């Protein structure tokens, strides 16, 4: 099997090794290089590993390239060919195979090995990269406790997740998974004087919500003495326990976690007869590994105290020999002697201060002689009257009869840490230290929002709002004069469409034209903002950004029956002017907010998290974890772009190419989202997402909502190249670091493009959640995003509001505030607006008021493509797909203005296919008659992924498969065909005609006048009257019409006339 370069480039990062430098000048090596190595590299490697985009990120055409390394792991270790991944690749070891077009011959391989052995010299330039910006492939590989050779020494393996009990059930028997049948039980192992009571099974235990066995001061479990663990005499052994203990006061004053052998007092200086893991509360919580009642290997006073109440991974290994000197104790993967008086779990993940300062273990130097008892095997907790009880949860217990070496131990620990979501320092230590260049730190978007005073201008008369000062200042600098104010009719149509997505009614036009008070305009703005149609218009903008739909896309395209609740939540949030910070927090983490007195509010907050649910889902993906990670990616992409204007998802496979976002940031966020569960059964294929009833209070029916559930928290490892099978360092859950350090940075620092001038300030690894946080961290993330100190959140939203009033944002790329996005055209104005936004308690309606009342907004349109690029209402804004449909219904008189409810979801369910599963594949076609007959506003139409109705798909509605920050506006013939021939437009034209013909007393000119007032908010001109009469006459005289019966004939003529109005540019464009 030939392996492709792209899949096989699971090579290669090269870190500078001392050996490499030491041999730099070796002339023999240089000779070898020039005669053999360089030609070999040129011939066999350069095809892929050169240039700006080398495969796997590895360049093999220069020393710098070699030193800088590739994307994965260590490429070569100077002097050590056998440890170099480059050699493994050319030797086709460890699943690597290079070059892809055929293996090197043995001589070539030997030469390459020789060159590396000599230090991999590369004559010529000697520039050495200062930092390795890519995470090395960790040498730690999560390994099952019984994997391969390990199975031979595995003596006991208790897994809480192997228990098939109900939550709270007593654990009478905890089966041993080692294959030796050493089940521990509350009865069987306890024969004489036993007091063991069954422990309790807890499905979501204090071990980060994973299954656990809960012990209290009366419970104990033991194995039968008939099957003693094969650890005797001065034996080597390893004990690993995943647990979370609570302090308590029961006697005797020590916690007996696990014991093997005879704990009897052998007499001083007797031999230790057992291996006991215990915490002596009487001596201030020292952690002992004891051979009996002797405290043979102890971490000393207080050593366990910090670990109470925390999930930990405790490992003890012992070689043959005196207990004190052969025992090693590890907590969360690191030697506990280096942290005897502090909690490893509390250490910042970046504290890598050289060699740890090891304390020797306290105790005696007795050589153990482990002997088994006749009444009991291994024992946990209070299995016998004299045993020490424990209180707390135990998730997993492993006993080996060998001392695992570091690699074996770390691999098994890694498996347990992954499984339990535990903090595991050795994996985090391999994460690259995050450093930023000054350029990155000084990038405008990451600077705090500055509240600038509006500038003074020459033409004070023009100013209606402080906004105008910023705009006019720029115009005056550019020598541009403001345009005239638009007329009242134009302004009303503009405002009504912009704020409600509907045309003004003839009555509204008349009322505004008749109101000559100075407040007339402001009154209209307020009336429109108070209209329920405001939310229906502005929610649509948000739904575009958060890729709202009611089906899953992909294989099944299953109907999401209750997605509409989220849609209505968004509409309601805009209408009630829910503060934007609350709006964000509720969508990200409404379910985690503490419940308040209002049932309605609590329910609303759960519905809001539909935000996390409405994205595309691959239900048929065979690799379920991959499917989950893709959903996480979607959530990160949407959250980044919608809320922060950052393209964070770019950092899934590599550090962001352009922005200061690292893979560590991505996986810090991914951990948060991965700790939230959208599916009812995350391992089953074609599984159902969460839909559950929420109580509405006494006497009311509960309602069903679609929302995720916070699940067991976990930290993710970096997926090299986004591949979940090549795992790098583990990253604690957290936020985007570049935004974390604002306080520490002054914008006045000089920019520099020198990549070597990285800032090594220690705060850069901040913004990671403490390892003790036992929830997903979603709420913390939401609060961090919705903070006024976040430099992006307010800016991004005021920019969106601006964009939808002016056609283009102050930052033109409204979902990308990164370096590849546009710079703000008016940075001070952007910050001033962001400041007002926060100051107004994040009121979106306040922003509309500010903008709509400005002279800037009230200018006439920029009719020609002049050089004036100052903000103006967009020229010839075409109605959006929804506005177009809604306007036709409004004008025809058929628009049902009542808010939509569950119609879309129920319709989709009624049409869906029953495949005998909980999921219901969508079976609605794009031209289903429902789309023609439904008469509520377009936002309430069903949104089926990959099957949008024509009116939406043709007129550039957002594709709900991804984030749409700004819609395209295209003009194609298929739109015209739709306007001419679709049932929707023809039906509405007919209804419009019937409306005109309803009052039989009206004359044709009156009808034409009425038609214009309805469609355009103005009367017909004389010319239009003439045209219309001529048209109607010609139509009625056409041979095919002459014979039609009345009133059908009249109606057909008027229908055709009305359709020409609905198709006209004056109708299709706002102005």
């Amino acid at each position, binding site marked *: 099997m030939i392996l492709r370069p792209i899949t096989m480039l699971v090579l290669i990062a090269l870190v500078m090794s001392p050996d490499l430098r030491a041999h730099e000048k070796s002339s023999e090596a240089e000779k070898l290089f020039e005669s053999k190595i360089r030609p070999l590299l040129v011939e066999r490697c350069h095809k892929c590993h050169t240039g700006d985009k080398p495969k796997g990120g590895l360049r093999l055409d220069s020393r710098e390239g070699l030193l800088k390394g590739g994307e994965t792991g260590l490429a070569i270790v100077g002097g050590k060919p056998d440890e170099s991944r480059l050699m493994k690749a050319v030797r086709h070891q460890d699943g690597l195979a290079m070059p892809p077009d055929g293996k090197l011959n043995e001589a070539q391989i030997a030469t390459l090995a020789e060159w590396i052995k000599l230090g991999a010299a590369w004559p010529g330039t000697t520039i050495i990269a200062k930092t390795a910006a890519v995470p090395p492939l960790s040498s730690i590989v999560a390994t099952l406790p019984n994997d391969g050779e390990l199975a031979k020494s595995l003596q006991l393996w208790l897994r809480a997740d192997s228990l098939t009990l109900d939550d709270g059930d007593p654990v009478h028997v905890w089966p041993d998974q080692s294959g030796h049948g050493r089940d521990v039980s509350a009865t069987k192992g306890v024969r004489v004087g036993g007091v063991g009571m069954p422990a309790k099974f807890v499905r979501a235990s204090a071990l980060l919500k994973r299954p656990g066995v809960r012990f209290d001061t009366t419970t104990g479990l033991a194995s039968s003495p008939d099957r003693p663990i094969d650890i005797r005499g001065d034996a080597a052994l390893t004990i690993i326990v995943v647990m979370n203990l609570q302090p308590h006061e029961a006697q005797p004053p020590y916690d007996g976690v696990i014991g093997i052998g005879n704990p009897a007092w052998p007499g001083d200086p007797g031999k230790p007869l057992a291996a006991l893991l215990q915490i002596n509360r009487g001596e201030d919580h020292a952690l002992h590994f004891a051979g009996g009642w002797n405290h043979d290997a102890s971490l000393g006073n207080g050593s366990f105290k910090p670990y109470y109440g925390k999930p930990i991974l405790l490992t003890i290994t012992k070689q043959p020999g005196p207990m004190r000197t052969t025992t090693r104790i590890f907590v969360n993967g690191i030697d506990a002697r280096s942290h005897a008086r502090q909690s490893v779990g509390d250490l910042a993940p970046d504290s890598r201060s050289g060699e740890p300062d090891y304390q020797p273990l306290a105790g005696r130097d007795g050589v153990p002689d482990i002997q088994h008892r006749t009444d009991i095997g291994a024992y946990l907790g209070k299995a016998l009257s004299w045993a020490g009880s424990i209180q707390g949860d135990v998730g997993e217990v492993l006993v080996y009869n060998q001392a695992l070496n570091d690699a074996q131990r770390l691999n098994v620990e890694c498996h347990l840490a992954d499984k339990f979501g535990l903090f595991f320092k050795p994996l985090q230590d391999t994460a690259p230290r995050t450093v930023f260049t000054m350029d990155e730190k000084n990038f405008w978007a990451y600077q705090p929002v500055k509240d600038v005073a509006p500038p003074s201008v020459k033409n004070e008369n023009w100013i209606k709002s402080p906004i105008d000062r910023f705009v006019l200042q720029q115009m005056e600098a550019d020598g541009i004069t403001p345009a005239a104010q638009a007329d009242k009719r134009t302004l009303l149509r503009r405002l009504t469409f912009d704020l409600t997505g509907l045309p003004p009614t003839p009555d509204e036009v008349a009322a505004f034209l008749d109101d000559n008070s100075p407040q007339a305009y402001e009154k209209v703005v307020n009336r429109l903002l108070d209209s329920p149609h405001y939310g229906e218009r502005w929610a649509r903008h948000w739904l575009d950004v958060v890729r709202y739909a009611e089906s899953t896309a992909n294989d099944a395209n299953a109907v999401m029956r209750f997605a509409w609740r989220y849609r209505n939540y968004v509409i309601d949030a805009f209408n009630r002017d829910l503060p934007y910070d609350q709006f964000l927090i509720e969508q990200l983490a409404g379910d985690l907010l503490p419940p308040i007195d209002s049932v309605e509010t609590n329910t609303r907050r759960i519905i809001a998290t539909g935000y996390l649910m409405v994205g595309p889902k691959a239900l048929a993906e065979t690799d379920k974890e991959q499917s989950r990670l893709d959903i996480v990616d979607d959530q990160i992409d949407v959250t980044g772009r919608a809320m922060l204007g950052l393209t964070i998802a770019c950092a899934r496979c590599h550090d962001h190419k352009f922005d200061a976002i690292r893979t560590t940031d991505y996986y810090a966020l991914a951990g948060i989202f991965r700790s939230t569960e959208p599916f009812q059964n995350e391992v089953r294929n074609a599984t159902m997402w969460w839909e559950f009833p929420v109580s509405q209070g006494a006497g009311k029916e509960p309602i069903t909502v679609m929302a995720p559930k916070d699940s067991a928290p976990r930290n993710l490892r970096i997926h090299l190249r986004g591949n979940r099978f090549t795992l790098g360092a583990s990253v604690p859950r957290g936020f985007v670091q570049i935004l974390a350090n604002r306080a520490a940075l002054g914008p006045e620092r000089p920019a520099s493009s020198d990549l070597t001038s990285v800032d090594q300030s220690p705060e850069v690894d901040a913004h990671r959640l403490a390892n003790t946080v036992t929830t997903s961290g979603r709420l913390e993330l939401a609060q961090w995003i919705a903070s006024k100190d976040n430099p992006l959140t307010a800016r991004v939203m005021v920019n969106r509001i601006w964009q939808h009033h002016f056609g283009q944002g102050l930052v033109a790329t409204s979902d990308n505030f990164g370096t590849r996005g546009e710079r703000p055209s008016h940075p001070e104005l952007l910050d001033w607006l962001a400041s007002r936004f926060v100051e107004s308690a994040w009121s979106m309606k306040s922003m509309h008021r500010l903008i709509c009342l400005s002279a800037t907004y009230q200018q006439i349109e920029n009719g020609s493509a002049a050089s004036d690029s100052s903000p103006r209402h967009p020229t010839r804004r075409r109605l959006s797909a929804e506005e177009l449909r809604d306007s036709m219904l409004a004008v025809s008189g058929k628009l049902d203005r009542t808010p939509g409810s569950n119609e879309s979801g129920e319709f989709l369910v009624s049409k869906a296919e029953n495949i005998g599963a909980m999921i219901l594949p969508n079976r609605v076609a794009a031209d289903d008659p429902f789309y023609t007959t439904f008469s509520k506003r377009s936002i309430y139409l069903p949104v089926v992924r990959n099957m949008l109705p024509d009116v939406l798909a043709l007129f550039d509605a957002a594709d709900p498969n991804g984030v749409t920050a700004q819609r395209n*506006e295209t003009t194609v013939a298929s739109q015209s065909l739709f306007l001419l021939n679709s049932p929707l437009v023809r039906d509405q034209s007919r209804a419009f005609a019937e409306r005109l013909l309803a009052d039989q007393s009206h004359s044709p000119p009156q009808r034409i006048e009425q038609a214009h007032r309805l469609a355009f908010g103005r009367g017909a001109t004389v010319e239009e009257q003439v045209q219309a009469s001529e048209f109607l006459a010609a139509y009625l005289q056409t041979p095919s019409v002459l014979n039609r019966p009345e009133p059908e004939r009249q109606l057909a003529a008027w229908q055709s006339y009305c359709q020409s109005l609905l198709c006209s540019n004056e109708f299709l464009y706002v102005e």
Partner: protein
Amino acid sequence: MKAPLSRREWLQRSACGFGHLALLSLLAKDARADSLPPNTPLSPRDPHHLARAKRVAFLFMHGGVSHVDSFDHKPKLAEHNGRPLPFAKPKFEFAPTGNLLASPWQFQKYGESGIEVSNLFPQIGSCIDDICVIRSMNGGDQVSHGPALLNINTGSGVFARPSLGAWTLYGLGTGNQNLPGFISLSPSLYHGGAQNYGSAFLPASFQGTRIGDGSTNYKDAKLSNLTPGDDPALQRLQLDLLARRNRAHLERLGDAPQLEARIAAFEMSYRMQAQAPQVMDLSRESAATQALYGVGAEPTDEYARQCLQARRLLEAGVRFVQVNFSYPRNYWDAHGDLRNNHTTNAKKVDQPIAAFLTDLKSRGMLDDTLVIFGTEFGRTPAAQGTDGRDHHPHAFSVWLAGGGVRGGMTYGQTDEYGYYVAENKVTMPDFHATILHLLGLDHERLTYRHAGRDYRLTDVEGEVISQIMA
């Protein structure tokens, strides 16, 4: 009058976002390509380099055609029938499979090239000297239909990306402004649905236009909204009124290219109403031609109509036609009853496809028409149940013909069981890069700026397979 934009400028502009471009006049009064300004989304554009193919017919076989029963003969399967695969199966299987299953079909050498084809496809076999069979396709991890369909049609099984046809239109425009430039015949409503011919973040102008869908017989398919709602004379009256209104409106407002474009679009759609039915009308073909394809005969009628339709559309200047044999009515997904499923399906398509190639050739169109026979994945050499095969993206066969492709050759190999690719693996990005290359487009240069980066059909991968070029 502004000078027309050069292609380079055009691409630069499009890179800035399309709203901008849509403001420009879109449609010329004359539908002939040479009279169109170069600055409209659908008007023809120069390729990056000399194009070997000017148009594409993508014959898409939905459900997964078994490679070891069609174009990739594996005698070892018969020899080891019922025995286990002697090496490890992939990490993820769609469903567990059992032991090796011999092909129920015989293979035979065809043409001067002597390439083996099973007796499922005797007529395609007879065209083999015009065909290049790629036996080393690899569909990555996409084991289920939806993602796999999206993968072959859009280059990504996971993310929403523009389709191959949309990229082609974006790169080259189209020759006939009275017809859509990218048409998908009978696409499935499922497994990605419209996303398979959609434009995703590219402007909607580049999305495929659907005629019919996989759920209804193509015989009854219509181009939506093409049938005039009123009699043509009445509609002409109406359009004249509309044009007068719009022109008066335009005069009031002055220079407004998008309003002019809208006026032109109505005129064009009127012409499309007239021209498209003619192109769609298969009865204009001679009885002999219809018989050649198998129109009017069963079981070939439906796919014959589609293939004949495709030829008529391509002839009329349509750039990209996808001819779908698709779910739920026509479907190669032989989890069980392989023999019956593949026999039935092959009988429906073999003659129409051979006729399509023959017809193109006799009209001199095959030289610059790229014909692609593709499927979303192959089927497992190991049995599913007793007589079925499961999804198999790890290795499968597709073929190309015409449009600069060397006929009578095979490219790539699978192992002796047809399980994995053994030589010259062709990934989906390689496949797409090669198609674009034949169309004169450099897959690394055909980019579109979206969400802060330049997107390509081939993402960051893809190598052109130059060995298969004539």
